[in-house]
Structures are given as C-alpha cells and as structure tokens.
C-alpha cells in the first residue's frame, strides 16, 4: 500500500480497540517468567554447549601471541574460536568495527576469542587459561584533546548536512542586544539494558538459525550472512522477546557471530551471553559530545540568531552524534547555523542510543534556552512559546504536519503549578533541601519507514499477524493486535501476534521511535488486503463492507468472517510504503518536561521530587503502553542528568566503570511518581494510523529540565553532564 496522500476516514478511526488502554497481551508471559528470551530456548535446542567471550586487554594494537594450549586441554573444552581459525570474515553494513578482533585490536574488550565447553563453569574457567600477549599502540582517547583535529565528514542520509547556514548568523549574533555563547558537554552513555546480548546458534547443514536478542531482524540477518560469507536465505534470525535494547541491539553484535562460529567449530549448538563486565566496552555506546551554542535575541524575546556546533568522536570509519539536528527545527529565528565535526578516537564504537542526536542535543540546547530566558528576564515557558514556529525555520514553505509545542508547554505549566516557581534561584527551601523547578521542551522527529506484515484468517475466525517487527518492551505485540482487531472487527483475544522472525515479512523494526506507527501501518495495509479477500469470498462489495463483531456486514446482510476461511486459511501480505508527505511536511513530535528537584544544601545531593511530561505525538495507539514508554524515557533522562557517565581512562583507552555497579543508572529510590499527559492529536500525514513515535520523545529534553531545576534550586549553572555534586559543591551556600 502506498501512502502518498493525507489519511482520511478509515476503520482505525472507530477506536473501539485502537487507542484503548489495554493491558499488554504478553503481560501474563512476562510476569510469570514464561516469555522465552535468547538464552532460554531449552525447548527447541536441548544440547547447547556454552561459550565464554574473551575481550581484548588493550585499546589498540596487536596480539603478538595467543597461547590456547592449556585452555584447549582444560576439562570440558570443545573448541576455541579465534580470528586465526574462524576463516575469512566480512563485516556487516551496520558495523563500524569488526566483531571478532585479532591479530589487530581495534578497541578494548573487542572480542578476540570464544571458549566453548560442555558447561558454563568449564567455559569460564578455561577462558582464564588463554594467554594473550599484546603489543599496544598509542591511541586517541580524549575527545577534548582531539577536538582540534575533528573534521567535517561526508554527509549521509543519517547525518543530514554537516554544515547549515540560513541568513547571516554572525552579523545577527553580533547585533543582538542579548546573547549567550556557552559550551556544554555530554559524556559517553551505555544502554545498560537488563538482558545481556545473547544468542543461541544451531547449524543444520548449511543453514544457520540464531535465537537472539535483536531490534532489527532484517539487518541482523543480512549482516550475519555477510559477515559469515553465506547466503542470506540460509540464515534465520529469531527474536521473539528482547530484554531491552535502546539502540544497543540495533545491530549484529559479537554474541551472534561468536555463537554461529562456535556452533560451527563445536559441531553442535552453542549459546553465548556477553558477560556483563564486557558489555560497555565490547558493544556500542552513545558518544560523548562537546556542544557550543550561541543564541542572540531581541529584548522582547525574539530569537534573531541561533547557532549550534557539536563535536563528537568515533572509531575510524564511524559516524557523528548528530546533536545539532533539533536546533534546525525547534525554534524560529531568521539567522541560523549548525555544524558537526568528527574526531577519530580509539574508544569502543559509538552508535545509536535512544534518540541519537536529539537526546544529547536537547540536553545542551534546552539549558541554553533557560540561560537566555534568564538573561531576558522572561519566563522560560514563555520564551519558548515566543519562538515557536509552524513552519520549518530553514524552509518556510514547508509546514509542520502538526505542532503542539505551545500547548504542551502551557498545559504542563498549568498542571505542574509552574506559577509557584520563584524565578530567582536559590530562594526556595524545604528543610535541608534547596528546591528548584525546571522546564524544557521535548522534540523528536517522526520517521517513516517501509514496513510489511502478513495476516491470516482461519476457519475458527482467529486472526494471526506475522511480521519481523520486534517488541523490545515497547508494546508492539499489543498495538499490533489492537490494529488487527480494529481492522478485522474482532475482539483482541481473537488475534494472535507472532513477531521477531526473519521468516516473516520485513518490518520497520524497533528504533528511532519509528516502530509503532510504521509497523502498525504495515499491519493495516495487510488487513486491508485481507478484508478485500474476505469480502470477495463472501460476496460483499469490499468498499461498502463493514467489519464488526466478527462479522462482515453490508446493508442488511451479515456473515461471520470465519465463514470466508471455511475452506482453508486466507493469507494476505502487504507493506506500507511512503510517498513524499514527509518531504512536503515536517513530521515531528513535541512535548514539555517539568521537573522539581531538591538539592541537599550541605552535601549537594540532587534528588528528583516531581516529574511531568506533556506529549503531542499523533494518535496514541495504546495510552497505557505509550505512557510507559514516556516514563521509561524520563527515567533514562533522569539518569543522564544526574549520574550516567562512562568514565574514560584517557591513558589506557577504555570505559573504566564497565558493570552495573560502576555505571550507575537510576534505581527505584531515584524516581518519584511520574505524570504523563497526551495532547489530543491525530496526524494524517504520518500514516493511516495517524500516529507518530513517542518512545524517544520522552528522553529528549528531560535531562535539561532536571539541570534547569538544579540551577533554579542552587543558582549554580552546571554545563557538564552528569550534574554530580562534585561540580557545584564548593559554590553552594556555606553551612559551617
């Protein structure tokens, strides 16, 4: 189905099932521990051997000697895979760095061997007997030091232009009566999903099946085939449940490749879970940024000049963290510039993490907006509304498809009690706590991606949806069931959803908050086909036929849909494909974040007391699971604000705090009750579902709202995340 004209009335608009806050259909499995994750398929593969991954002990250099003799003789050892014996390997299109290193080492904890043994305990112990000598080489590990050598890389589809200029930024900035020129930093972040990257691999002759934990089945299938040098049709990737991804499982990773190689070497199924202490350095991370923001405004609050430059680093051949992207679209202003520069670093591979670009970009931009508002003595909510725009500021011919930023901010201010905030920092006390409130806009683009599905009706009236779409906690199972139920006019219990299998039609997959809208639109397309076939078989005019209560109806005539499949299942497959609506209309999601913090006046510990997000993201397909996506993103943003940082040892070139004790993410005690409001909105430009993404909107801006609240509490402006007490303790009021 080609979607190239704005959506009109369609069966989804009935909202009998779609739009309802249904409990997740996979909830009973997940809460009883019966949903099977990658390492847990004992039922399909009974005799898997165990793999233990060895990561490189240097950041860059060469392995000069690898002595496997003792390990190979160790009890229970079946095989050891290294680059020496793995055969010729390719590299996946989505990987920057090779997944199996050696003899060259490209980053710390790059996998260099897999030890396979009869038991987990034996594999782990034998790995301790592998002796590796390295010749380390000097590398570049410090973004600040490397900033001067950063270059403007070739632009591509993901980055957009690396330099943009509209009007005369320099002149307008020089003339502006009120200006800000400030530099902000965001650190490297780890996805830290709860389920480690894990894979069970089994070969049958030339055919390989991997049960893994992956967000993008088609990418994984193609990249695994390419890396192994085998035909893609000989690779099956299965990933029905994924214990969190956040971008860390977008790509083929070492667990998949090593399990496949291990199973080949061991001549039996092998399973591998990356050990937790390896994950931070072995896999990908959100790269650190240095961001310079310049804003010039008139005294009435109108922005006349806005400039945003960002520096990030990555492995040779790697890419940019596109931290300036939102600044091209979020606020009006006649004179604008953005620039992105990339430094070559030898830290582990940087790549996408929840809202790449916007998440770190909004962390900086929305502090800058707070700073300018303060200089202007304009309320920061009002300042943002003054600079709202209904068109793409770089191209006024191009309107937003929907843009409720001002409404989100106004409604949020009202609900949060923003008028109780004292704009003078450091003035509000509650016992030992300095209290502050902060606001930030939320912004994340909506992406349109082709997505397919197959729908089957059987003789009992059961509808089965199959698509390689994944559910990484986002609620895909449930919203897809809701979509099919709405389209086919059956209760949600009559829909079976099967996901995450490369035998199913290729979907958008899970990433970039594009999963929900695109994958359900693909299911919509397949359901339209199925409706047509059912109508045809039962002798209805498909244009006039209505599907309701398990029946097809037209005029006075009604037939149960099951009757259409009496002679055998009916199968329909289609995909949603998009025209140029996203070029003609800028499609984005908007919100307002409101946060109240308390800062201990003596120790400087910052604790969040209240959080509210107001979101405008098109039609909300399931308010219950969508709300969960938003609160989860707010929680990750709270971590980014107050604690998360992969600490770089700039001498040795690795992330030092590479486990869940060292890399602190928020715990229960850090997160108060969270409120989320969805603004009533449908976006006919996005898809027949009229929905947009929401899972990443929630993280964009929230950290800045926390930062602004800390400033309002203390009067100390911290521009380097995370905002930990050591950065402002000496500027807090005297307590002695």
């Amino acid at each position, binding site marked *: 189905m080609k979607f190239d004209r704005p959506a009109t009335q369609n069966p989804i608009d009935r909202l009998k099932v779609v739009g309802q806050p249904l409990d997740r259909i996979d909830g009973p499995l997940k809460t*009883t521990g019966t949903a099977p994750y990658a390492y847990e398929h004992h039922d399909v593969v009974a005799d898997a051997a165990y793999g233990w991954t060895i990561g490189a002990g240097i950041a860059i250099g060469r392995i000069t000697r690898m002595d496997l003799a*003792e390990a190979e003789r160790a009890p229970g050892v079946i095989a050891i895979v290294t680059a020496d014996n793995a055969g010729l390997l390719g590299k996946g299109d989505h990987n920057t760095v090779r997944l199996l290193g050696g003899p060259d080492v490209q980053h710390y904890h790059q996998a260099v061997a897999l030890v396979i043994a009869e038991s987990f305990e034996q594999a782990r112990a034998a790995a301790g007997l592998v002796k590796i000598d390295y010749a380390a080489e000097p590398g570049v590990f410090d973004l600040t030091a490397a900033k001067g050598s950063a270059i403007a890389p070739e632009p591509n589809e993901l980055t957009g232009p690396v330099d943009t200029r509209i009007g005369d930024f320099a002149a307008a900035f020089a003339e502006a009566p009120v200006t800000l020129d400030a530099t902000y930093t965001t650190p490297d972040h780890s996805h830290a999903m709860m389920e*480690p990257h894990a894979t069970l691999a089994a070969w049958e002759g030339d055919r390989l099946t991997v049960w893994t934990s992956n967000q993008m089945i088609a990418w994984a299938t193609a990249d695994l085939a390419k890396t192994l040098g085998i035909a893609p049709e000989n690779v099956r990737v299965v990933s029905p449940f994924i214990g969190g991804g956040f971008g860390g499982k977008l790509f083929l990773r070492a667990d998949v490749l090593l399990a496949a190689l291990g199973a080949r070497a061991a001549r039996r199924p092998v399973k591998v879970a990356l050990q937790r202490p390896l994950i931070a350095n072995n896999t990908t991370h959100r790269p650190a940024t240095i961001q310079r923001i310049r804003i010039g405004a008139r005294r009435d609050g109108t922005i006349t000049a806005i400039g945003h430059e960002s520096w990030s680093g990555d492995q040779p051949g790697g890419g940019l963290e596109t931290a300036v992207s939102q600044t091209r679209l979020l606020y009006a202003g006649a004179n604008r510039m953005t620039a992105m520069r990339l430094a070559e670093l030898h830290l582990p591979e940087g790549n996408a993490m929840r809202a790449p670009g916007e998440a770190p970009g909004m962390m900086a931009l929305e502090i800058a907006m707070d700073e300018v508002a303060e200089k202007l003595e304009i309320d920061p909510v009002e300042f943002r509304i003054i600079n709202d725009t209904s068109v793409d500021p770089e191209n006024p011919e191009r309107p937003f498809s929907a843009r409720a930023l001002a409404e989100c901010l106004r409604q949020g201010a009202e609900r949060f009690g923003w008028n109780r905030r004292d704009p003078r920092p450091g003035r509000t006390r509650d016992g030992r706590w300095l209290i502050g409130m902060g606001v930030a806009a939320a912004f994340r683009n909506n992406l349109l991606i082709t997505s397919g599905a197959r729908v089957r009706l059987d003789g009992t009236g059961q509808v089965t949806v199959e698509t390689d779409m994944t559910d990484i*906690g986002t609620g895909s199972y449930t919203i897809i069931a809701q979509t099919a139920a709405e389209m086919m006019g059956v209760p949600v219990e009559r829909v079976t959803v099967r996901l995450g299998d490369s035998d199913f039609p290729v979907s958008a997959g899970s990433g970039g908050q594009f999963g929900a809208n695109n994958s359900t639109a693909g299911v919509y397309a397949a359901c339209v086909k199925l409706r047509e076939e059912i109508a045809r078989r039962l002798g209805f005019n498909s244009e006039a036929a209505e599907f309701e209560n398990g029946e097809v109806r037209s005029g006075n005539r009604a037939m149960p849909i099951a009757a259409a499949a009496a002679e055998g299942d009916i199968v329909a497959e289609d995909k949603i494909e998009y025209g140029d609506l996203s070029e003609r209309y800028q499609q984005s999601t908007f919100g307002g974040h409101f946060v109240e913090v308390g800062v201990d006046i003596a120790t400087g510990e910052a604790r969040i007391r209240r959080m509210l997000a107001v979101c405008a993201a098109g039609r909300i397909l399931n308010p219950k699971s969508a709300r969960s996506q938003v609160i989860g993103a707010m929680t990750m943003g709270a971590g980014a604000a107050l604690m998360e940082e992969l600490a770089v040892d700039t001498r040795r070139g690795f992330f030092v705090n590479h486990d869940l004790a060292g890399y602190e993410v928020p715990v229960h005690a850090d*997160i108060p009750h969270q409120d989320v409001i969805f603004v009533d909105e449908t976006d006919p430009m996005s898809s027949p579902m009229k929905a947009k993404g929401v899972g990443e909107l929630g993280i964009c801006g929230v950290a800045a709202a926390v930062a602004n609240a800390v400033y309002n509490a203390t009067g100390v402006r911290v521009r380097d995340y995370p905002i930990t007490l050591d950065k402002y303790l000496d500027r807090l009021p005297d307590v002695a």
Partner: protein
Amino acid sequence: MQKLVPSSLSRRDLLAASTASLTGAVLAQAEDASPEETAHADAGTAMRPPIRAQVSFTVNDRPRELDLDTRTTLLDALREHLHLTGTKKGCDHGQCGACTVLVGGVRINSCLTLAVMHQGDAIITIEGLGTPENMHRMQTAFVKHDGYQCGYCTPGQICSAVAVIGEIEAGIPSHVTPDLTGTPELVAEEIRERMSGNICRCGAYSNIVDAITEVAGSRA
C-alpha cells in the same frame, strides 16, 4: 593427582590464602606477570576436573536432587539444569537484582550463592508464584499497572515485591524509616527504597510502585 597450589608458596602464604587477603594463584602470578598479559588462573588449579557434589532442595514445593559442579550458582542450577528460566541473569554479579528468588521466604540474589549451599532449602521462583493461567496477585497487579516493559527484570521485581511487603509487615526497618524504634509503614517511599536492588532500565519504576501499593493496600 595434580598439584593444587604452586610450589613457590610458603606454608604461611597458603594459610594466608584462607583469610580475606590473597589467593595462591594471584601471588604466584606476581613473579612473572606483565601488565599486558591477560590475567589467568593458575593452571594447576584450573586444570582440575570439575568437582561434583549432590544437593537436594525443593523448588516451588517440588523436591529436586541435583548432581552439580560445585561452581554452579543457584541461578545457573535453576536456569540451566532445571530449565526454570523465569529467574533472569542480568549481571551475574549482584548488581541488578534480576535473579531475585525467595529462599526460605527470604529474597536473595541467586547469582551470588552456590547451589550446593542450599541443601534442604525451600526455594520459590517466579514460576512458583503463579502461572499465566493462575497468576499471583502481584503478577496480576504488574499487568494491570504496566509495571514492566521488556520484561527481563520483571520476575526479579515481582519476587522482590512479594518479599518487601513481608519485610515491612515483619517490622524490618529500611534506610528511609524515620524512626528506627517505630514500625515501618507501607508507603511509597519505603517501597522505593526497598525495591532499589532491582534495576529496571526500561524505567517502569513509577508503575511498579503503583502495583505494589495496590497489593499491599489490599492486604492492609
């Protein structure tokens, strides 16, 4: 028989190894270690064949007898030997709480305890609390309040939640209990502090607290 410890160690060093300070293998490496060399265990010890031991306990009221490598954690015994995969391995180092189970009614991290140390114990896992067809009310409340997203930390959260209500009712204080000599209350702040050993990276905390509060309230 293979030697158990390197011959270079003195008797005093061997004895010291039984206190908290150092181990034979570590000391033996000191002489020839290069910083660039992957740390590896002393071959003499590591090359020993696995040592097996029998252990019997009940899991979800069902008697189990296992013959295990002594190195097997309770977590791996459950997941890899009994195929009770509801208990999750998130970190294997006591840093996340995904492996939480109840032993003798007490919640512990099953990754940081050896299976052989549980002779005679009564172990309850997520599978023992309820099934999809017959859910424990905490499981039902988690579904109702959407107290999970990816589902991987969820069994640990639920086992912990069941125990937390019991701990508060038993009067065990927490870090946030205002008066140590008083009785802790079943309030959100107490639940948050006590649940803090169960990390949820999806960030379902606010909903989890709602689910636990509902179950706790219905008991009060």
